[in-house]
Every structure is written in C-alpha cells, then in structure tokens.
C-alpha cells in the first residue's frame, strides 16, 4: 500500500517535471509568439502571430523528415531555415529529455532540474551560434568559441542532471511570488518611466511599488523614507555626480 502510494507520488512528480521540460522545449517559440502579439497593436516589428504560429508549426513538423533526408543528401544542411534549426537543435533534444524524465527515478530534483535547464541554455546557445562562421584554417571564426563552450556546458548540464539521478539530494526550493513580482514590477516601471516622467516621479513611484514586496511594510513610514530617498537621489546623481538625467515629467517642463 505504502509502496504504491509512494510510486504514484513520484510518478505525478515525474509527469509534472516532464511537462515543465516540454514547455521549456517550446519556450523560444512561445516567446516569439507572445512577442508577435505586440505587432497587432503596432508595437515592435517582426512577424505577426499567425506567421509565427505557421512557421514554427511547420518547422517542428518538418524538421524530422528534413533531417533524415538531409543526411542522405549531403550538404543540404545549409538550406535549413533558422526555425527548422531551432526545432532540430533545441526542441527535439529537449522533447527526448522530457520523455526520458517520465521513466527515471529522480533522487535529487534540485540538481536534476537545474542540470536540465543548463542543458537547455547550452542548446539555445548552440542554436544561436549555428549561423556563425567556424574555423578558417588556423584562425578561429566568430562561432568557434561559442560552440566550444556551448558543447562544454551541454556536457556539464547533462552531468549535473545525471548526478540528480544517482545521488540523493534536496527537493526543489520553495519559490515565493510576492517579492519577485513587486521588485520586478518596480524595476520595469522605473525603466519605462525614467525617460517620460523623470527621476523624481519614477524613483518615488518605484519605491512604493517595491515596498509592496513585503507584507511588513508600514505605509506612513515608507512614504516618508521614499520621499527622503527621492530627494537625496535627485540631489546626488545630477548635481554631485554630474550625471545627466531628466528630473521632472516632460509635459510639466514644456
């Protein structure tokens, strides 16, 4: 009884991990899709969402037969589009890893997942440098060193993941959402607001947003400190250190 329960627990965990890796395997494609949504409302340039969906869907489906026939017809590799290469170099290996994950016993989830993410990063780097020139005679091309270190990191990531299968180790750490969310929100707000709204407004507002990150914040106190800090920065950076920076909102100055 206890044994079966243990097994179901570990198998649901494996399924979860495998699903996570599956998402990771499609992450660049999904990222471009989300990015392309911006083109609808006129933000940014690039392919529209429909195009992205079509191109990547086709690439993911056609990459496998292409690869098989490509290896028969020598030198066909140069004809591959970047989307197909992404599927071949990045997504397919990770699909394989996701499938393997379903059947193994993960003894140190922290190491296993950590290793796989590094592995994915290495594959991404290999894909990103696949269009670069390799060795030309004795001299390095632009792509030689990135590929060398990419392969090295691939091996290391695999090694770390492998260790997670053979040695017992810690569980995944607990992630909280509040701190990261509000700190990141404060950073993004600052980045977007500094040009149009100036230092005074954006620094104070970001301070208040960041303060949401902790449930222990006392608001009166935070407002006083935030105001004092804003004043200090407004004097320190532009005047004492002489770094040029917009101070007040553009529409107020005009």
């Amino acid at each position: 009884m206890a044994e079966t329960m243990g097994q179901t627990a570990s198998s649901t965990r494996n399924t979860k991990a495998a699903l996570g890796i599956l998402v990771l395997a499609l992450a660049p494609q999904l990222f471009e899709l989300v990015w392309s949504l911006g083109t609808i409302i006129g933000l940014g340039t690039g392919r529209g969402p429909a195009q992205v969906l079509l191109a990547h869907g086709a690439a993911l489906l056609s990459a496998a037969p292409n690869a098989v026939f490509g290896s028969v017809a020598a030198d066909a590799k140069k004809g591959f589009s970047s989307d197909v290469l992404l599927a071949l170099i990045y997504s397919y290996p990770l699909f394989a890893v996701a499938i393997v994950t379903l059947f193994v016993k993960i003894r140190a989830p922290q190491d296993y997942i950590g290793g796989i993410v590094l592995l994915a990063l290495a594959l991404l780097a290999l894909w990103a440098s696949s269009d670069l020139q390799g060795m030309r005679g004795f001299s390095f091309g632009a792509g030689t060193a990135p590929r060398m270190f990419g392969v090295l990191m691939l091996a290391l990531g695999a090694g770390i993941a492998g260790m997670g299968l053979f040695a017992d180790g810690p569980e995944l750490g607990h992630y909280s959402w509040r701190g990261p969310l509000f700190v990141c929100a404060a950073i993004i707000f600052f980045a977007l607001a500094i040009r149009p709204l100036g230092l005074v407004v954006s620094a104070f507002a970001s301070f208040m947003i960041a303060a949401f990150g902790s449930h222990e914040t006392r608001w009166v106190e935070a407002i006083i400190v935030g105001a004092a800090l804003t004043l200090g920065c407004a004097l320190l950076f532009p005047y004492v250190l002489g770094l040029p920076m917009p101070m007040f909102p553009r529409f107020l100055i005009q």
Partner: protein
Amino acid sequence: MDLFANLAHGFAVALSPINLLMCLIGALVGTLVGVLPGIGTIATVAMLLPITFGLPPVGALIMLAGIYYGAQYGGSTTSILVNIPGEAGSVVTALDGHQMAKQGRAGPALAIAAIGSFFAGCVATVLIAILGGPLTKLALAFGPAEYFSLMVLGLIFAVVLAKGSLLKAIAMIVFGLLLSMVGSDIETGASRMAFNIPELADGLGFATVAMGVFGFAEIIRNLDHGAELNRDLVQQKITGLMPTRKDLIDSAPAIGRGTVLGSILGILPGGGAVISSFAAYTLEKKLAKNPSRFGRGAIEGVAAPEAANNAAAQTSFIPLLTLGIPPNAVMALMVGAMTIHGIVPGPQVMQKQPDLVWGMIASMWLGNLMLIIINLPLVGIWVRLLRVPYRLMFPSIVIFCAIGIYSVNNAPVDVIMAGVFGLVGYWLIKHDFEPAPLLLGMVLGPLMEENLRRALLISRGDWSVFVSRPLSAVLLAIAAALLVLAVLPALRAKRDEVFVESES
C-alpha cells in the same frame, strides 16, 4: 631603493586631498555595508561602479578598494555584537566573538579584531609593494598560450576553493563564458547570439549582470525569509575597549598565523576573504592545546580569522594589478571599473600608470588607519544602524540600483536586463548554483578567447602548444592536479567539513 621610491610616490598620490576623501568615503561605505546584513560587498561595488564615472580613475579605484577591505572590518563588528555576520568573510568571527560579547568582553573582542585587521593590512600592503615588481616582470614574459593556461588555472582554483559542488561551479563558469560572448565578435565584428535584438549588439553590460545577479537577486531572496531578520542586540554598554595583557599575548601568534595564511590564500585565485577566514579558524583550532575552548569565547578564534580575511582582501589585488587577472568576483568588478575608465588591466598598468597602482597601494595603508578610527571609537553609531529595518532598506536598494544602472549608458533597457538577471540569480540560488564563478567567467571570457585564438594562430593550429611550452605546461599540470585532488574522497570530506563547521 626602487621599492621605497615607489611607495613614496604612492603616498604622495594617496595623500592628495581628493584621494584622501575618496579613501575615507570608501572606508565609510565599506564599514556600512559590512555592518548591514542583507547587502553584500559585490552588490555594493556593482552599485557604486556607475557613480565613479565622474571621478578621476585613481580616486574611483581607491574608493572601490576601500569598500572591499572596509567591509571586512565592519562585518566583524556585527558578528561580535549581534551574532549576525554582515559579511560572509566574518561568519567564523561570530562563533567566538559573540561568545566573548555575551561574557561581557565585547570591548576586547572588538579591539583585537581591529588590531588584527590593522596588522594584517599593514603586512599585506608591504607584500603587494614587494611582489608587484617581480610578478609584473614574470607576466611580461608570458605569451598567449601561458596566459590562457594561467586563466584556466585561476578558474580551476576558484572552483576548488568555492563552496558546494565542483560540477556546478564549473558549469557556472562556462555559463559566464557564454554570456560574455553575446554581442559583436572583436575580430570579425559578426553579431553573436544577439537574436537580432539591437540592444544586445554591444554585449551584456558587466555591471548590469553583476547588479542583477548580486543586487536584485539577493533582495528577492531575502524577502523570501520575511523582511524582519532576527536581531537581538547585545544591549549592555560596551565598557573597556582595551584588551588585557593576557589577551594580547594570547592573540599575537594567532594574528601572525592568520596574516600569513590570509596573504597566501588571497593571492591564489578564487580564495579571497571568505575562505581564508575559515581556514585560519580551522588552523587555530588544530594548533590549540585545548581545542574545546573554541566556540566558547577563545580570543584566538577572533584574532586569526579577522587578520586572515583582511590580509586576503588586500593581497587579492596582487594578481589583478600584476597579471590583470581577477582572482575573485569583487576583483572582477574592479576590472569593470578599470575598463570604464579606459584602463586595460594587465602587467603594463604598473609601468604606464604608476600613479594608479602605487597610489592605490598606499591608500590601502591609509585606509586601514582610518578604519581603526572609524570602527573602534564610533562603534556605537554602527550598532545603532542595525536598527534600520530591512522593510525600508530593500526598496531603497532597488531604487538606488535602478538609477545606477540607468546612468551607465542612459539606457532604460539596461535596467530591464538587470531585472531579468535578478530573476536568473534567484533561480540560481534556488538550485544551489553559486553566482560568483559566473561573474568571474564573464570577465575572463573575452580575455580567454582572445589568448586562445592568438596562441593557436601563432602555433599554426597546433593544439599541443599548451603542453609543449614549459611554463604553460606547468600551469596546466597544476590545474589538473588540483582538480584530481579536489575529487579525491579524503580531501572532499575535509573541504566540506570546513564549511559545515561555520554553519553549525
């Protein structure tokens, strides 16, 4: 003699009013950082990098150096009084130092820590001055193959001496190397791994990554534990700063040993202040006639690690100033600071910029003198600072970092990139990856690639050049031997033991 002429020149530079002021600011900020937990040296140096923009290079580097060794002093204060090490290098000081404070001997503990640090600082300053010249000459004899091998050795040292899994530390270095390659290739100008994003064409800013991984990530991680750190201050007044005669006699040999050990470990890459304080404490415990006194307020347990971490903090400048190779993450940031000011670190700096090198060396001695004054009589002020709650500190740090990054290039995108790396750093911490080797890899990446390219070009594509040139072969052999030693079970256990001791 050359040495004295150089030192005299250095003091002339360091004693100019502006440099004295920079040294004082550095020492003050360093102490502040050392006292306040939740904000580390690396994050602070990264945060202040952009601020040094407007300063002359000598003043800027004097200030940044002051922060680093100043933090070692400040960290000991909180370790002893509050049992919260403000700085990783003073974790072991808390073991015996806080026990002494509980027995009402906080004054002598603080005094011995300061005296030990000052003595170590003086010795280390002289050591830098003595070793600087010869090592620079050696470095000038290095070809690209030797340089590459030396960097490999440095990285291996960093990995072996780092805490935790070897494999993970190496992976972090390689990750750093890969990150350093984003952007334009130096020789061909090809855009590498930039994903057609124009903002990436110039590469990832070093300060941006450092601030994200060390500044933002640390804040996010600290918020996990709840903002309120547990701080039960030793409330009684500190009376009688002067140590007794017996204290002095007991601690003098410990300070000597700590200084020697710290100086050696500081020069070795990857060492720095943290590992040397652990090692010094372990050594004292091994040598003591009655080891059971340790952990119960033995004064040697305060004196040795404090001397060691301060010595190491200073001698770690030696590889940076003579070879241009940073031995740890803080020194990696110093490389960043030098490049901001248009100085290429390396052996030529000693000859081309004597003002900078000798001024910095002399300022270290002056800084140590200032730190004694800052720390001993003013200790009450620093302790009061501990009452500043983290809930007010963390939004301030976020804003300060954000403004700092923005001011480097006046680019809002940089701020967002730092945020992204903050999340990356948070993830790394959750998976037990050390971010410090990543930074080291990122700084050494371009140097390594360039030297590798050159070495292979000169040897006409023959890889055996790394083992056929004797100096390079020796360096690589040491690196290989170290790696083998580190995975041997006996030494592994020892290495883990050193770190476990401090945590229990």
